[in-house]
């Protein structure tokens, strides 16, 4: 049975993802996300009693790092792909985000 996805739900998700969608996209994604949810519903119907949740396939933790400082990136290189960075101040720059 299809679960369905409303246009307003799609709109709310788009807002969280900072996406602007037009009318036809709202319909398209409502249908497509609905299909994804349908699939998830099918999976959810499987009886998983006694099966521990799997967050990741790696289970042991021998891969931890020792607490050693490694060289960082050269600052100019770090800033080199950032639009509008201030090389002088050594800072990234974005449109003002508060008041």
């Amino acid at each position, binding site marked *: 049975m299809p679960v369905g996805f409303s246009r307003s739900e799609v709109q709310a998700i788009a807002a*969280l993802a*900072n996406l602007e969608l037009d009318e036809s996209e709202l319909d398209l994604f409502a249908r497509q996300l609905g299909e994804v949810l349908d699939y998830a519903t099918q999976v959810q119907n499987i009886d998983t009693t006694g099966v521990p949740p799997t*967050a*990741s396939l*790696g*289970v*042991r*933790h021998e*891969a*931890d*790092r*020792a*607490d*050693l*400082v*490694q*060289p*960082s*990136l050269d*600052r100019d290189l*770090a*800033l080199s792909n950032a639009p*509008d960075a*201030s090389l002088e*101040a*050594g*800072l*990234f*720059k*974005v*449109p*003002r*985000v*508060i008041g």
Partner: protein
Amino acid sequence: MPFEAVIGLEIHAQLQTASKIFCGCSTVFGAPPNTHVCPVCLGFPGALPVLNGAAVDFAVRAGLALGCRINDRSIFARKNYFYPDLPKGYQISQYELPLASQGALEYTVGDGIRRVGITRVHLEEDAGKSLHEGFSDSDRKTYVDFNRSGVPLIEIVTEPDLRSAPEAAAFFARLRAILVWLGVNDGNMEEGSLRCDANVSVRPAGSGAFGTKAEVKNLNSFRFLQKALEYEIDRQIELLREGGRVRQETRLFDAASGGTVSMRSKEEAHDYRYFPEPDLPPVVLDADRVDALRRAMPELPDARRRRFIEQHALPEYDAGHLTESRALADYFEQAVAAGGSPKMVSNWMMGELARALNDNGREISDAPVTAARLASLLQLIDRGTISGAMAKGVFEKMCASGRDAAEIVEAEGLSQIDDEAQILERITSVLSEHADAVAQFRAGKAAALGFLVGQVMKATAGKANPRRVNELLKRELGGGSPGT
């Protein structure tokens, strides 16, 4: 109708690792902007996080000190939101399965034991720093420094067990002392390595239900925490008294006005869409590792305070003061081990030593007189070699010169005169010079004795043992007290 406040705290504490939580960049504070950054902490596509084992150890220690259950398996989760100081568009944190949970901090307040539940302790990464002011184009631009991005934090969440602003501030101070004591955090609130947010609501006193809460952010000192809470509690009570209702929202403390202002309402708040971090395996803590950390835990402040009272017979006040920091407590015990009598060591630490540290802006770890040297000074008083009053002068010279007490006493001929024959010699001449005072004493004027003691002390340049002078004078004057 009387109201009561219900307060829970969320505390972010930077862990004292050398490198960041998921990369090898340095965590040192105050470096030039964006010099401690790399593809991982800048969120470059394809860069993968690798967990710093030391961050886990620190978090476990904090969890143990807070009486938490250490979960043998915890998972990292992505907390998704957009802000320029968060380069990946998500913060790696822990959500459903935190590293530690269900603890409590118990501590002594007056005669009672206070218990504040700890909901959870989890690991997460810090964000970068946004600079909104100070540049010629600050009206249009925000600048970002990512040195702090990826610095390891624990978030400690308490149960809503606190009931007033002073109580919350006292708890936070207690928690800070423990984190610093453990070496988990440096306690530096000015540099932002310890930060506190508070959830506050009010309800009619005695009610079991919770009111609507507001979250107050930006409480980076004990004073701000207390002021912000006081303001917020009053604001909410006022609102309810006027028949209004509290909105669930995030409020920012404004240090300048001493008030809180609305930041955003929870209705429009973020839906963080947490999901398990696919780039990191679960944190699996085997029992051996947790046991080793548990065994290496230092004695905590409250336990040490109780032991000082029992083992060293210190008054409550002294024991409380001396366990304010681990370094202070260590100094005390080193001095006692070196032969200082506990109450004397305590008095000197709270008196002369505290003054000397204060005057020179020094910490106990950098004390001008070591614990062993303080003990040897106090032993000179105990043995009667010098008087307490003389010891103060010797202590000052020890601070200034770095020499030890015996050396100064020897070099400056400060040894107290305790020899009966020497003191009697002075007494005889004082008695013959001050026949009038002697007569007054014999006539029953007790104060005359004090005058005569003073004269003998003066004659020995303050070096005579005052107790002996007193004894011998009374004997010479015919024993007994005046009037008998």
